[in-house]
């Protein structure tokens, strides 16, 4: 794995970027799934009056 990997500077930058990105993405995804599972994002077949 060490032979196939990019240089340490690249890996460090990737891990930092991924950590920051996850900090933004995971709460947003958790909220999306929470809304979807509770049905508050349900797709309506009939148009609302």
């Amino acid at each position, binding site marked *: 794995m060490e032979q*196939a990997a990019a240089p340490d500077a690249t890996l460090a930058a*990737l*891990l930092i970027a991924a950590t920051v990105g996850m900090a933004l993405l995971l709460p947003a995804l958790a909220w999306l799934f929470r809304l*979807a599972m509770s049905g508050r*994002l349900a*797709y309506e077949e009939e148009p609302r009056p």
Partner: protein
Amino acid sequence: MLADLAAVLALVGLTAYVVLGGADFGAGFWDLTAGGAERGAPVRAMVKRAMSPVWEANHVWLIFVLVVLWTAFPKAFGSITSTLAIPLFLAALGIVLRGGAFALKGQAATIAEARALGATFALSSVLVPFFLGTSAGAIAAGEVPVGNAAGELWGSWTGTLPVFVGLLAVATGVHLAAVFLGADSRTCCRRRSPWSRRRPRTQRWPPC
């Protein structure tokens, strides 16, 4: 150490894609096998209702895995994508067609158009996990040597193990989707019909 962490990151993203995206693809299988227009309508409506809020978010993980792989392991990424160019291209084409068909299905002007879009969506939902599975199987079978297109273009992913892994990927997605759609239909019924518990047990598809 850093390479190990990057590999773990790729693995976490891959797991999330298999679970979440796999359920999405599996829902397309249930759409394909739901039956005719009238008989299959409740299942297709359930698939659409369940997928609409989350299907784009689920496929974010594929992009994440690709970016982590080509950044952290460029040699491996180049070897994999060059040798397995055909199944990966077919999977990418399927993802594009699937997304477009799903988004446009509700806007069809004629029944023939709606059927064509529905068939495109359902068929590509089965083929995409198959081709992604054959790619994984080819890597597991050792058919992807290091180097630019060093492996066989066709033979690397059409062996017994790659095809088996492809079929397993489809089956896994179908199972995940069945579990998710089953849970979603119960949630829908509890939410929309307070009196649903008093319905006769012979009623299999409550009109959620």
